[in-house]
């Protein structure tokens, strides 16, 4: 995903703020819902949005920045087109999660917390997808897959690449 035009991003964020405000006011408890809405629409939270958010919520820039950076879920850079999250927690480790992670990194040519050179794939760790009885689990974009073997991962990626080529 490419970074959206700044004006587009500003308009999107303005709409989200208006939608969440009650009588023109935004309580701090709506900060997380607003950040979620921004990331849902733009794929990440643009750092230059912090000042406007701080003003709208009557908070300091440090407070808004502090919240965004505290939570692993929020991204401040444009995401890859396809993020593969590999569960690193104990139940998945007990079923070959470490080997699966190595396979994913090798297949995609991508380190943990990194993007492939073309921006197509990113590999991220995740700590539990709630599929511990059918481990190991991964999430590709927004779909969870359980009992993932290296072979099954290859099939899932092949399917994904085919689908992408069809839509292009």
């Amino acid at each position, binding site marked *: 995903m490419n970074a959206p035009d700044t004006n587009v991003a500003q308009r999107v964020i303005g709409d989200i703020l208006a939608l969440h405000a009650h009588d023109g006011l935004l309580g701090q408890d709506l900060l*997380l819902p607003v950040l979620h809405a921004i990331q849902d629409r733009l794929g990440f939270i643009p750092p230059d949005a912090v000042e406007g958010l701080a003003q709208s919520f009557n908070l300091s820039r440090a407070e808004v920045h502090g919240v965004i950076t505290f939570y692993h*879920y929020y991204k401040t850079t444009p995401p890859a087109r396809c993020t593969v999250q590999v569960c690193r927690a104990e*139940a998945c480790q*007990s*079923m070959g999660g470490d080997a699966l992670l190595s396979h994913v990194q090798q297949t995609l040519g991508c380190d943990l917390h990194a993007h492939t050179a073309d921006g197509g794939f990113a590999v991220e760790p995740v*700590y539990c997808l*709630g599929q*511990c009885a059918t481990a190991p689990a991964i999430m590709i974009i927004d779909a969870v897959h359980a009992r993932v073997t290296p072979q099954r991962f290859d099939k899932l990626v092949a399917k994904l690449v085919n689908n992408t080529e069809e839509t292009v």
Partner: protein
Amino acid sequence: MSVRIHVPADSAALALGADDVAAAIAREAERRGIAIDLVRNGTRGLLYLEPLVEVDTPEGRIGFGTVDESDVAALFDAGLHQGESTHHLALGPVEQIPYLAKQTRLTFARCGITDPLSLRDYEAHGGYRGLRQAVTMTGADIVAAVTASGLRGRGGAAFPTGIKWNTVLRAPSEQKYIVCNADEGDSGTFADRIIMESDPFVLIEGMTIAGLAVGATRGYIYVRSEYPHAIAALNHAIQTATRAGLLGPDVAGRGRAFELEVRKGAGAYICGEETALLESIEGKRGVVRAKPPLPALAGLFGQPTVINNVLSLASVPVILDKGAQFYQDFGMGRSRGTLPVQLAGNIKNGGLIELAFGVTLREILYDYGGGSASGRPIKAVQVGGPLGAYLPESQWDTPLDYEAFAALWAVLGHGGIVVHDDSADMAHLARYAMEFCAVESCGKCTPCRIGSTRGVEVIDKIRAGTERPQQVILLRSLCDTMLNGSLCAMGGMTPYPVLSALNHFPQDFGQVAGDELAA
């Protein structure tokens, strides 16, 4: 007449291709001109059999599992739609599968049976009977019933739920809150997710009863972002309950208000700690608060707040419906009622096993679990999540009871069990426990924030054999500081997996007898 076929839409089934199976069944039925009524039910919790397809017959529901989309045509050839049990995936009547038949389903009574989003289905299976009872009672009487049931917090801390509620009931305030902790971040746990996806109304009903009990008019369910299906199911069910007058300004036509809202977390494990969770709902960094004040007196937005785990709240309807004594009659010692055991990791038959307290770990691992998935000997089991101790085989005859586990310097917690076979390196897992604490610490207290990082370094030295005896002493001293000096369970319990691994599996740390004495 059309045949009713159930294919679960629980995320465990979806992660194993249930949508493809459902589509294949619809296609195959149409191709053969068979009229079917396809229901997307929740999961029965027999996760090792997912996707588990069920067909209604006069003899009850017949199961087929594990079904792949490529099996569907052959299943129809073998008469799936007539409930024929000749195919090799046929399991016979689902309710007679021993794994399920031997369970005591109280909290999870409806899971997998009903359509999770159908209020009519919920009510037809005993739903909202607890609330209808509660609206005829005073708040104090509801609290008394929950106290008498012996229900203790199912999130892990096992604090008596009724006592917590009583504190909130007696706290004078214009505004009180009910908060549900659905930030189920522990590896090896999925029971909260199953309730939210497979029977969301039971949680809504439990929270509504809690609101009536303590005089709270507003509730929040804080769900982790990794659970999109649970969030969708809850939002849908809240809308339905509101339209039916079971939530809103006039609950069940009795003139009392209770509004409910879902809040989505953002990938911070520490927000499963109750005060960090409250901070997060308030729009702040999920940093742990010092206690006192207790959330029951000064919780969300500084107001008296009941904060309970999903399963504690979801157990309330059955207690109000069938009576405190009914619930209290299950269990052992001070552990009353049922515990939803979550069996996971390297285990052949993983899933949800709701049982009265008192069954032993060994029975769970072998009678239900069928041994390891790999076929290798089981080496260690971690009970109670990433902050729980590793138990070696010598401790597997311990009954599932809060006090029996505490006596072993272990925690029963929420009943999540993660199994490791003999290929597990316990020193590696101990290092992981420290590393996880370092990644997820909120940073407020030093023992947790710094201690976890030092812990990783010390374990690395032990594994590398650098001044091993001295480093082991250092690790024990560090764990002592974390145990006694941390603000919450994150830093305070990380030593449980670390020290239990070290004590029970010293050989994995390269230790030989007498090492520590020699230092």
